[in-house]
């Protein structure tokens, strides 16, 4: 199974709060891969809004992303794009 890992940074000023988390989940539900995000020793399913919120990732946080599955590469690209885009917020 292909696996892609990498790092992303939270760039929008308000951090990954409820709205961005919901947007990310909506986007990622379309991928078959398992996608996990780790931050400060906490590892959560990136398709889970509740999980994402418990990370408390403020602006400037660096998060580790790992995607495993047939579309791992595309999934990682989608995650990276949403983060670098600031979830369309700023």
């Amino acid at each position: 199974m292909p696996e892609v890992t990498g790092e992303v940074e939270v760039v929008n000023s308000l951090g990954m709060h409820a709205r961005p988390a919901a947007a990310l989940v909506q986007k990622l539900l379309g991928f078959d891969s398992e996608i996990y995000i780790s931050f400060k020793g906490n590892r959560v399913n990136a398709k889970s809004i509740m999980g994402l919120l418990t990370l408390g990732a403020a602006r400037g946080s660096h998060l580790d992303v790992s995607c495993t599955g047939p579309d791992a590469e595309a999934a990682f690209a989608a995650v990276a794009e949403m983060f670098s885009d600031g979830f369309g917020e700023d």
Partner: protein
Amino acid sequence: MEIYLQGLGVSPGIAIAPALLFFHDRYDVPSYAITDFDAEQMRLDTAIHETRKDLETIHDRVVTDLGERHAEIFQAHLMILDDVGLREELTEHLTKHQRNVEYTLDMLAKRYVQTMESINDPRFRERTADLLDVVDRVLRHLLDAERPNLARLGQESIIVAHDLTPSDTASIDTNKAIGLVIEAGSVTSHSAILARALEIPAVIGVADAPSSISAGSLVIVDGASGRIILNPTRETCKRYSKAQQRLEERRAKLLRITKGKPARTMDNVEVMLCANIELPLEIEHSRNVNAQGIGLYRTEYLFIDRDSLPEEEEQYEAYSDVARAMTPHPVVLRTMDIGGDKFVEHLQILKEANPQLGWRAVRFCLARPDIFKPHLRAMLRASAHGAIEIMFPMISGIEELREVKAVVAEVTQELDDAGIAHNRNIKIGSMIEIPSAVMLADLLAQESDFFSIGTNDLIQYLLAVDRVNEKIAHLYEPAHPAVIRMIHQTAQAARAHNIPCSICGEMAGDALYTELLLGLGITALSMAPVAIPLIRAEISHIHLEEARTLARRVLKMSVAEEIKAELKERHLARAKKYDYLLDSDQDALLTEKSM
């Protein structure tokens, strides 16, 4: 024993029914070991399935009744219900710890909440209430609990609560919930707005409301006076149910006799009667009572209780819908009055020491062109679909009016350049609600197409009274001679410059003041749709010449009590003679001899 409680009446009418206490306390969740994992997983799946059905039903109903944006919260709830992370963890815990699913779910939810609450940024806590709300719904199915479900009530009830969340209020079964008693809240709270829109009698700010009322006991709600009566005697019940019956009969009769007729005085002068609205379902109410337009559409309700700003497109749709539905009648869109008591989380408006004197309405809009311009663009674009007019709140002087008009001109130019349809001669009005605007009414009239007096704020600013503060609420006095003079001065300035002057505050819907307002030179009144038939009946028994004489006499009076006594006597005499006494006269209604 009969007990009287006093609160602030926010939606008129009388309701008599058993109390249904609505608490947000968590359930007592049992904990026991399980042996059949599959059976337990099945129970969870069934409960989630049932909860999803509940949420979808509520969502669809709210979309129809209140519009898409009030239903967003249920979308968020569905998303939490289907959260894959939560489901993974649930299954993992069920297999590993072999405890029952209620316990496991409750424990996990608490853990999530704890984690989110430990984060030092309130934005990450926004969803904790929603998570608990959803978990509660699932637990209700798992425990088969007798927890009141506001969306499905067994019998007619008075809902008694400390407070209601927007999701509680939106999901209320309005056929069975016939009254609301709320301990917290303000006149502009979500529950108050909705109660008014749905025409359910409601009283807020009732101290100790849930704790002093026992479940199932009989309660009388008098939404006009803000009175709550617990354990009423048979005598009292009889009195109120007769008053209620009378009220309903008269409302129906009033509607019947006034429907389809313009509001015209005895000497044949037509007065324009419009509706104040904020929710889509009120458009229908306005048409039902034959409103001659929307005199105040409070656009800020598109902005509150949500995570993100409404896009220009969403606003455009909302404004166009109203414009189309009311054609050919005018629709006055008031630009958002955000700030003050309406805080919007995502706009990052900080709590201020004096919000009523702070960064709100046009002050806020002028500082945030990124929000103001799309807001105006949406309004101007919608003006292609009906008789839209734009009104600016909290205008304090001529500079502010010129500034907002400059922004309108800029947006108009942009639309022209892009070839987008809009009304190029859109009417622009000033809301008169700050005393300085009254003092400058002659200047503002030269540069406005119309005036609308917002009496609620005008009285508050003029008399320096916050009417939500119970210690001084009695000082809030619409009949104060200073208030009367201010209305007179504004109406005179409008007449001198040949522009219409309406009133859109609560005074407009109070029959006590109708004759005086017309006599002072007011040409249009805008009020909650429910008040229109009564005011129309009142107007049809008023003689404008007499009203002018009355106004001249009242302008010479020096005491509010004296003014009110005179107005009351005249109104009651008319209403009794022509048999249309209604809720603003409930005390009179209750003591009527024939009862």
